[in-house]
Every structure is written in structure tokens, then in C-alpha cells.
């Protein structure tokens, strides 16, 4: 039996459960605005986990995760608007669609020894092709976008992922917490060890009998599938989809910030990164609004600055440093 608490210690367990309990109880006290910020925190923590699995654990840099996010979002949303197939079912179609795309990108890269930066370029290229493809795909509204009606019958029911902020709050919390447990479990499994070996030294990994192509493909399978689920959430939460937004490289970049700032290859890095970054970004937006300054892109500049500061001060991310401060041992790479 794989023990996900192997590196955690009693204090780690306690803090982890305490945080979870606080977050479960938060809606009792929080207003709508705070809930919407927390929804974004969970959303980025979740996507950060998905991306971190591939980059932080298996060592493969993807700068095109918007592809899987967008395919997940479009598949589930289109199934609902075109065929009335609800998202709880649609997600099981969205996952294989995005996973297939991920496997194709992975196969193309790793089979033909396109590695490192070149692999990253390949992932960007596929997200871009797909964006252009969806810009011309009439059935999903092409560049004019795909909209989920708020008025059609049943669209406000939980089984169609409609409803108030509480539904999205708890759903996002479950996704983020579930992904964190999944990653913690995988990290302690034979598969997790293989990923670390492949990340650390592919040649040495082969020498101990690891099929590195297979290990990378499995990492991609998990990462793309998880990202697709995030995409379904995105589609039904925002209720409108534009290819130029969903498949944009900005989306791919935005979802890798939390794990980088929190700590690549750590289990809580994506969570901590999202907890730091998202509230700061939202506060900045609120501040600009209050000051009456209309400066689109200011949030991106802020994220860029944050990234520079964190990388120069804590190159391993905030979480390993924070965990040492808190006396936890769970931050081991």
C-alpha cells in the first residue's frame, strides 16, 4: 500500500486537515467576492497540479497546456449546447479527447527525440494550430464564440453545472484537494519514482530498466486528462468560450505560474503558489478599479514581476522554504 503521508509527519497531516476544514467552512462567513477569488485560487491550484505532474515530476516542459484546457472546455460545452449532453457525462468524453491530443504531442516529441526547449515549442505550436482551427470551426461558433445560455431549462441545475457560487466553490475545492491527494499518492507510487528518475537523468533511468518513453507518456496522459477536467469547469463557470482566449498562450503561461512560484516538483507548491498569486492579482485589479485607472495587462506585468522576484529570491519556490520554516518535512523534491 502506498502511503501518501510518507514524508509528511504529524504536523504536516494536522496542518493539511486544518486548512481543508477552514476552506470547507469558509462559505459560512465569506461574501460572494471572496468566494469568487477562492474559486480562482482552487482553479489555479488544480491546473497547477496537472501541469506540475508533467513538468515538476516527469521533467517535461509544456507551454501549451491551453490546448488540453480548451479541448476539455469546448468538448463539454459543445456537447451540452448541441446535443444536450450534460457536463457530468460530457467530462468523460472531454477527457479522452484532450488525452488523445496530449498523447499525440508526446508521441511526436519523445519518439523523435524532440526534447527540452524544442518540446516546449512543439506544445506551443499545437495549441496555436488548434486555436486557428477553432477560429474557423462553425459548429462551435468559430471566432464569434460559444455561449452557454443562462435561461434555457435546466441550465441552473447542479447536474448541468449551473447554479450559484456555492456550487462552483465546492466543486473547485474538491478538484484542487482531489488533485493534491492524487499527486501525493502518485509521488509515492512506483510510477512517481520513475518520473523523478526520468526528470533527473534519462540515461541513468534507462539503465535501471525504466522505459522513459512510456513513463513520459503516462505523465502526459494524467496531465492532459486533469487539465481537460479543469477546462470543463472553466467552460461551465465562465459560460462563454472564444478560441482566441481559451487556446491563447497567455492561458498556458497563467496556469504554470502557481507551481513555479510555489515550488516545482513539490506536492504543495501549486497550492501555495495559487494562494499567493491569485489574491494579489485580484487585489491589484480591484485597486486599479478603485483608482479609476484603466490599464489592461497590468496584472500580467505584475505576474511577471512576481516571477522575477520569486525566482531570484527563492529559486526552488516558496513552499520548500515555507515548509522548512513551519518545521514540515513534506517539501522534499
Amino acid at each position, binding site marked *: *500500500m*502506498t502511503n501518501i503521508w510518507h514524508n509528511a509527519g504529524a504536523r504536516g497531516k494536522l496542518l493539511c486537515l486544518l486548512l481543508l476544514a477552514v476552506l470547507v467552512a469558509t462559505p459560512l462567513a465569506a461574501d460572494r467576492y471572496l468566494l469568487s477569488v477562492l474559486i480562482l485560487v482552487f482553479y489555479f491550484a488544480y491546473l497547477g497540479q496537472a501541469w506540475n505532474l508533467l513538468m515538476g515530476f516527469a521533467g517535461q516542459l509544456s507551454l501549451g497546456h491551453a490546448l488540453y484546457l480548451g479541448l476539455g472546455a469546448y468538448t463539454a460545452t459543445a456537447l451540452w449546447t448541441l446535443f444536450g449532453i450534460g457536463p457530468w457525462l460530457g467530462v468523460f468524453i472531454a477527457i479522452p479527447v484532450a488525452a488523445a491530443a496530449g498523447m499525440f504531442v508526446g508521441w511526436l516529441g519523445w519518439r523523435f527525440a524532440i526534447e527540452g526547449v524544442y518540446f516546449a515549442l512543439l506544445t506551443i505550436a499545437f495549441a496555436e494550430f488548434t486555436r486557428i482551427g477553432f477560429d474557423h470551426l462553425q459548429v462551435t461558433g468559430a471566432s464569434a464564440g460559444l455561449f452557454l445560455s443562462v435561461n434555457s431549462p435546466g441550465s441552473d441545475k447542479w447536474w448541468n453545472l449551473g447554479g450559484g457560487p456555492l456550487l462552483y466553490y465546492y466543486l473547485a475545492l474538491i478538484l484542487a484537494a482531489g488533485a493534491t491527494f492524487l499527486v501525493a499518492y502518485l509521488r*509515492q*507510487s*512506483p510510477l512517481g*519514482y*520513475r518520473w*523523478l*528518475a526520468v526528470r*533527473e*537523468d534519462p*540515461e*541513468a*533511468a*534507462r*539503465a*535501471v*530498466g*525504466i*522505459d*522513459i518513453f512510456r513513463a513520459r507518456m503516462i505523465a502526459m496522459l494524467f496531465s492532459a486528462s486533469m487539465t481537460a477536467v479543469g477546462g470543463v469547469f472553466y467552460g461551465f463557470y465562465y459560460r462563454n468560450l472564444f478560441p482566441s482566449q481559451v487556446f491563447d498562450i497567455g492561458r498556458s503561461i497563467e496556469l504554470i505560474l502557481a507551481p513555479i512560484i510555489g515550488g516545482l*516538483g513539490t506536492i504543495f507548491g501549486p497550492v501555495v503558489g495559487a494562494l499567493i498569486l491569485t489574491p494579489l492579482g485580484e487585489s491589484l485589479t480591484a485597486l486599479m478599479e478603485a483608482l479609476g485607472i484603466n490599464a489592461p495587462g497590468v496584472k500580467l506585468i505584475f505576474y511577471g514581476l512576481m516571477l522575477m522576484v520569486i525566482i531570484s529570491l527563492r529559486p526552488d519556490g516558496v513552499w520548500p522554504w515555507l515548509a522548512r520554516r513551519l518545521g514540515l518535512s513534506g517539501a*522534499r*523534491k
Partner: protein
Amino acid sequence: MTALLSVRDLSKRFRGLAAVSNVGFDVAEGDIFAIIGPNGAGKTTLFNMIAGAMPCDGGTITFAGERIDGLRSDQAAQRGIGRTFQVVKPFPALTVEDNVVIGALLRTTSVNEARGIASEVLTQLDLIARKDQVASSLTLPDRKRLEVARALATRPKLLLLDEVMAGLRPTETDRIVAILRDLNRAGLTILLIEHVMRAVTALASRILVLHHGAKIAEGTPDAVLRDPAVIESYLGAEAL
């Protein structure tokens, strides 16, 4: 005598250069077989072909009765060939224990069992006190032993050691020699490339001498080290 490893007419060319040409030899089960030769003689190339890290251009490699030429290195490892690298390749950010656990996971799907194997092997190689240290913080002699430990954890039938003594002090060399002898006594077949003659003569039951990619001598240490061709091409001034 049944050979665990049998190499026939093995060749490798790098463009015009014949790195290894028509080399053949047998390693019997339970042997410690050493390959020596000057720098650039093709020893590591030969090794890489046996371990599957490099395809051969001609010839065959048979291991435990099965052809293994053309296999990838992970497939060779699965069939029971463990190896170390001349320039050590630990998993640098991982702990010593995790490095060895990864090796052990080749033979078990249980991480707990792998940890058990790892602690056994680490004890054997005097590394158990360092198990929680990150591999990149180890000294060179410790890293060399970690290489051996990780390879051993895969439970190989044949262990390929590429210059594990190079750069070690004589006392450290003797320590590894003693460990390898114990492992061999327990039934492990070892094929080693080595420059440190002190270790070769202490360990090897057979020696093969490679020069410019070709075999110039093979036999027991006594016979090989007295061979005039070997003295001229390799031992040279050192022996005179």
C-alpha cells in the same frame, strides 16, 4: 562451462573510425571479467553496446541464452544487466535512499519492499548512514558507491562496472574491491573496465586487453600481464 554473456564479432564504427572491431569473448557465470586497455581503446563503446546504450554495427551479443543486441538499455536492464557509468550519473536532487529505491522498483511493485531492498544494498555498500542525504551532496567516492548500489538494487545477473575505482584513493579502492569480492562470492557475475591495475589483479579471474578497438590478448591475469604485446601497447613504461 556455460557462458552467461557471449560476444561475437562485435563491431562499431564512428564514421571512418573503427571504435570496436570484431571483438569476441565469453564471460562465464560467477566470473569477474576485466577489460583493460589504453584510453580510446573502445572499452566504454563495447560496454555501451552490451548495455544497450548504443546499437552495434555488426556481431552478436548473447546473454543468458538470449540475443540482446538491438535491445534498448531499459530492456537490457530488465533482462538482468546492471551497469554503472564512467562519469557518475546519480539522480542528483533525490536522496541516496530514493536513488536506490528507483533501482529496486525494477523487480517489485511495492515501494515498501523496494525500500527494504534499498536499505539492504546501502548497508552492504556502507552508505546507509547517508541515506537521507541528497545525492548531489555526496563526495566522489560515495557517488561511485551509490552508482554500484543503484545498479545492484535492480538485482542484476551481470554487473557492468565502468571504471568505478578511477579517482579513488587506494584505501577506498580496497574497500570497493572487498565489497565486489563479497558480491561475487554471493553469485554475482561482474564485467569491469578498469585502469587501476591494483584492483584488476586483485579481482579479475580473466582479463581481455583491447587496443585500437581490437582484442590483443585474453586469458588469466598471470598470462595476460606477461604477454609482450600487452606490455608494449598498454602497460608500457608502467611495467618496465
